[in-house]
């Protein structure tokens, strides 16, 4: 206290160090993304987006992988989201505190921490080999759906928890039963939160590479999948394939692929933010 001026400047220095620790990684990310744009921008053309993979780097395109990622995204969402929201509703609205309930909760938080490549091993044995789905779109989507599920449950539970208890009681007071209160009151009110959580989780799942590589998804697919049982490619696998090649021309392709993948992520995140604002406003 004697030298309070000194203390204040010490605090100021510490604050600056903390701010730098926060800014440094963001700055680094900015530099790295800019560098990738510089490396890949020239390769980014209409023919890159609509072309198929090729042994010649300059004529290789991303189209089958792009379509594969979009299809994978929809199929994975279709498989995981209804179950995930159902589980979240059960845990928040129906489950009473019991050993079984806390066991399910512990399970879900543990599954969220399981490395994605382990899901790949599960998918390889269960979907690809035992269920004989092969390296199909369905096998990939089922594997990613298991990975997505705990994320959907956790984020949906958080959204359901934001609905005040009084709203449910108001519905009961008007003669509504439990399911009606959930369907008419709780779900609509928590919808912005649930949707935002789902889109962000789906974005993360679709950016995954390791589980798809593990189930044996191909990177050299020159056609677009015709059914859920077709072979498929995905953008992350295509990037991995290109970046693993020794030739520099393929590295430019990888950079262009990274730009496309980051754009897909950006669009999904923007949609999530827009939905939250839009639906949030309507409910007010």
């Amino acid at each position: 206290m004697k030298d309070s001026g000194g203390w204040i400047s010490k605090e100021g220095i510490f604050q600056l160090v903390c701010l730098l620790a926060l800014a440094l990684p963001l700055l680094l990310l900015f530099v790295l993304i800019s560098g990738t744009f510089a490396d890949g921008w020239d390769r980014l053309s209409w023919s890159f987006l609509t072309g198929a993979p090729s042994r010649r780097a300059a004529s290789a395109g991303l189209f089958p992988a792009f379509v594969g990622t979009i299809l994978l995204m929809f199929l994975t969402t279709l498989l995981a989201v209804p179950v995930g929201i159902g589980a979240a509703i059960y845990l928040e609205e129906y489950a009473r505190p019991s050993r079984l309930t806390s066991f399910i909760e512990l399970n879900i938080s543990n599954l969220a921490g399981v490395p994605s490549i382990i899901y790949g091993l599960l998918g390889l044995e269960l979907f690809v080999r035992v269920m004989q789905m092969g390296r199909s779109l369905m096998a990939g989507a089922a594997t990613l759906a298991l990975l997505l599920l705990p994320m959907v449950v956790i984020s949906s539970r958080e959204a359901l928890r934001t609905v005040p208890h009084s709203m449910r009681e108001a519905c009961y007071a008007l003669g509504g039963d439990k399911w009606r209160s959930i369907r008419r009151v709780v779900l609509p009110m928590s919808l912005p939160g649930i949707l935002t959580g789902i889109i962000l989780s789906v974005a993360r799942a679709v950016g995954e590479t390791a589980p798809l590589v593990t189930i044996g998804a191909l990177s050299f697919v020159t056609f677009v999948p015709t059914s859920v049982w077709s072979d498929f490619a995905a953008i992350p696998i295509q990037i991995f394939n290109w970046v693993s090649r020794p030739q520099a021309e393929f590295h430019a392709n990888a950079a262009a692929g990274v730009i496309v993948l980051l754009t897909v992520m950006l669009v999904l995140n923007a949609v999530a933010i827009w939905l939250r604002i839009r639906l949030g406003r309507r409910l007010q």
Partner: protein
Amino acid sequence: MPGSETAVQLDQARPISERLIKYVLFGCGAISIATTAGIIFVLLFETVAFFRRVSFSQFFLDTQWTPLFADKHFGIWPLVAGTFLTSGIAIVTAVPLGLLAALYLSEFAKAGLRRVLKPMLEILAGIPTVVYGYFALMMVTPFLQRLIPGLSGFNALGAGLVMGVMILPIIASLSEDAIYSVPANLREAAYALGATKLSTTFQVVLPSAFSGIGAAVILGISRALGETMIVAIAAGQQPRFTLDPRVPLETMTAYIVQVSLGDTPSGTLEYQTIFAVGSLLFAFTFLLNIVAHRLRKRMAGGA
């Protein structure tokens, strides 16, 4: 139903559809148990098959890992060393930065700035790992090669540093939750005793948040051990029993990727090795996650 007689009657008086809904929703929750059981069963099944053909001593006492060569060795230590070296570099990068960032967000940033900065930090966690792998191999390593002569094109250093950036938001965000949950009256008591903000932070806030921060660090380690694409792309595919961050090596996850890229028929020893390696990885991350869970519970229960 453990409830009273009337509760049971009420339950039966409900329409069948209402009860059916409850069972369906319970089924959704139970799928998580089935998933965990599936993971454990699949890993155990193939790992047992592996250890029928390879002895424990070959796995745990040998220091060479060459199951894909003619002269086969199954010593897991090179893969474990590679995994812990890259993860170690990541943790050493991410913990100080993440903790300081958390302190800035919770102790110094105004509410408005915090609302902007926190989501920006989350962006780092949302970048696909294959993109981080590209960064590590194509940009970070070439930059490091200018500073460190003799740094190989594939190395643990570049991969570990980039992995540190990836796990930083996990550590920052969870540490911030822990720091944020330190009761305000503890801080006020310190201020009332004449403590400065700095000494309050270091002597009151950080010690009180210790278990929460510990949980954050452990979850960060767990994420780093299981991280696959960054190391598969940038650290190499040469199992090497070393702690030298400048040379190519191979992590447990990168080995699984290496085998998966070839078309390995099920039932072969090569196929079984990836499940044996996967079991060990699962065991590591599972233990760390349990410890972190305990610490977080203590954080919620204590104070």
